[in-house]
């Protein structure tokens, strides 16, 4: 830095800087774009539908939160793009300009950028770890119900080993009761996806994988296969039915007929 030129204090330099018209314009565009992108948080959560478990709620909250966190950064890129198009663009006929400033780099801008993106990255990581931790199965009061989910080309079968080995093509579960899935496959890799409950785990042939959930809403939800498994992959779907504990007990007592 040449010490002869700028003797003015940093604050007044900053004040002069923010008074430049393009700074104000870019700032206003950035603000507007940030707000617009923030809206995508709730929109995405809305598209995912009402959650039917704590895990699904956590997932939707996370998507919204990440959108809120990412919006200012994305908006910065987009606002510079917009101002570059509408503020700094020359007429095409003008040809290449010879008046652009020869800015090679800018220490504070680079430092701030890398710092902010690193902080955001650490935040994402900590949030994700916390979320994984809070969603991990807990040694809770209620004894979990074990359901065996078996994928075969191209249907799901569910067995209830703790409830008289009932077999069902629909996934029937009681509300507010922790459930553990033992998932496997008899042929190729499938992936058990209970959409509104936020459950997904691959069904691997000759191996058992685990997943767990506690349904929090009574209703009919979708079970799909999320891993291409051959000819009728698209049709490998069924319903997940969450019943009140009483109805579920009745269902078990009826041997799996409602």
């Amino acid at each position, binding site marked *: 830095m040449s010490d002869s030129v700028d003797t003015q204090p940093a604050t007044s*330099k900053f004040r002069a800087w923010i008074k430049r018209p393009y700074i104000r314009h870019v700032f206003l565009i950035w603000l507007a774009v940030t707000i617009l992108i923030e809206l995508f948080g709730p929109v995405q959560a809305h598209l*995912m539908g009402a959650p039917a478990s704590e895990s699904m709620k956590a997932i939707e909250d996370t998507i919204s939160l990440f959108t809120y966190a*990412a919006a200012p950064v994305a908006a910065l890129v987009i606002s510079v*793009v917009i101002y570059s198009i509408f503020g*700094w663009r*020359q007429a095409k006929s003008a040809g290449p300009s010879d008046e652009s*400033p020869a800015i090679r780099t800018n220490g504070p801008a680079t430092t701030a950028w890398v710092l902010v993106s690193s902080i955001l990255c650490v935040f994402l990581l900590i949030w994700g770890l916390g979320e994984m931790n809070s969603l991990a199965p807990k040694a809770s009061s209620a004894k979990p119900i074990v359901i065996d989910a078996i994928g075969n080309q191209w249907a799901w079968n569910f067995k209830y080993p703790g409830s008289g080995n009932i077999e069902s093509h629909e996934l029937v579960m009681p509300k507010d009761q922790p459930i553990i899935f033992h998932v496997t496959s008899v042929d190729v890799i499938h992936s058990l*996806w209970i959409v509104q409950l936020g459950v997904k785990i691959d069904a691997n042939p000759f191996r058992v994988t685990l997943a767990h959930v506690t349904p929090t809403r009574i209703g009919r939800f979708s079970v799909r296969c999320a891993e291409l498994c*051959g000819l009728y992959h698209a049709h490998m779907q069924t319903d997940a039915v969450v019943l009140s504990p009483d109805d579920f007990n009745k269902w078990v007592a009826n041997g799996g007929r409602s």
Partner: protein
Amino acid sequence: MSTTTRGPIPNGGGLMRRLNLGTAILTGVVFGFVGWYISGKLFGFGDGPDNGWGRDRVWIITMTMWAIGFMAGIGAFVGPIRWLMGRDQQFEDQMYLAGKNQGISRYFKFTTDHKVIGIQYLIITMLLFFVGGILAMLIRTDLISKNTEIFGPQTYNAVVGLHGIVMIIATIIMVTGPFGNFVVPIMIGARDMAFPRLNALSFWLIACVVPILLSAVFLGGIPTGWSAYEPLGSQAPPGMDSYLMTIIIFAISSGVAGANIITTVVKMRARGMTWNRTPIFVYGVVASVGLALPAFPTFMASQIISGVDRATGTVFYDTAAGGNDWLYTNLFWLMGHPEVYVILIPGLAAMMEYVPVFVRKPLFNFNAAVIGIAGIVGLSVMVWAHHMYMTGWAPNLNAPFMLTTELISVPTGMLFLVFVGTLWRGKVWARLPMLAIYAMLWNFIIGGITGIYLSDVPVDVALHGSMYVTAHFHYTLMGAGLVGAMGAVMYWFPKVTGRMFDEKIGGWGFWISQIGFNVTFMGMFAVGLAGQPRRVSAYSSLFAHGNFISTMGAYTIFIGMLIFLAAIIHSWTSGEKATANPWGAKTLEWQVPTPVPLENFEVLPIITSDPYGYGVPEKINEPQLEPVHAGDHR
């Protein structure tokens, strides 16, 4: 001719001078047929008693023989054979191989001139995009409404798989092939690649692979998606043999090309071209092929094992018999994630190369660009299992892989900083290649942020295997990667073809395809969030609107791309003649005449500055280090 000092034209060489694409196809077909007939007699043409392995043996042998015959017929073995026979090539032979005075016919031969190979790559890339694009249209047409079935699920799955692998190969070669070959040697001040014959070899291996890949159509297709997970892959028809032979040969091609390009850049830069004065595009190309070097051999290995399983009845991937299907998944993604950066980086680097030309400013923070690229390359080999969060393979590794994946956002952010910083206050010369940068930034920020959602393990529970993922990687690979390649085509068009790109027709095509692109994949994000799985031939009525919108968007892309293609063809054949340096750019490829002479430079250049010395120096607010002769500043 001043050949007297070198003696007469060496005996022979006559055969070498008679080989071309025609002889290659002929010998390929003959070899292939012989291989098919003999192996069929030995192992049975698919009705053998040995559990159908015979069928796969026959096809793998047939394809191998085709490849050997094709490569022999094009002249790939001429060099080593003549060397073995003690008649190594003379200067005239090498000039002949470089395509001297052969006009258009040199594009159909084993020509070693890097500029010819660049154009060959460009043509084959566009051909692959055309095929892949048609397949995409078939997919979207089948999904236009809930009940449409233009073909059954078998064909649908085959189309999806073929679309995937065709596009993956096309996007891998789309920048490093055409421009890594045509532009990079000139850009660094070299007369050709370090190993010109290997360069031709890498291209002709790809030419040889295209028929093998497309043969899948007649062999039952690749109904497994391009990831071809086991054990689903072992159920698939001999189309899988096409797939695995394609991958094996393609990996050889990319390995050869990678070694060649890296050697060229490391050893053959002009005097004075220090690493700080080496253009960023060169970094991008080296990063891409350098990342492919460790990545693709694992893919090749995965497919060799798969071929052995199919043809000889081994059980490497058969969990039931003591193998392990997760071995395949790991090998696949060990390649699969680096591979997305192999695709993405050179497209971004091409745009970083020319954004200073159009805003007439230096590239903002060159060092950050290099560190960003290096950081992405380094991290990308450590993130593969984020594709496997939901497999159950190693749940305890999900957190570490989430860490490495999210860390990539930092070097990626640095690349955004370079673009934003270069745009900042730059007086923009709004030519079409420049406008493509805006489109890329828009697409890439969407692709990048959705990638962050997917890196989060709990969120991935909801989104893995859904259309959301499909939309995400199209935003990065197509929205950023392919747009980068389209920008590269427009930017280097005057140098490659000698004519200006028609920005009017091309602009219509480009913007129509961009609008279509955003419509298509926004629709796909929506249905993915709502729960539509990937790779489905039918879907619940919940997703009807989103799919219809996506299909309309896809048709729009196709129309736009056709117009863009028309602009390329029109400009190439009858566009306005270009001067040597129509953009007033400072990199070396613009300082040589157009068309570029055979060995690029009469006198090799000496470099005294980096190529980004645009703009007027600022007195205040800028930490100018030195008086402003570009390049002295370091």
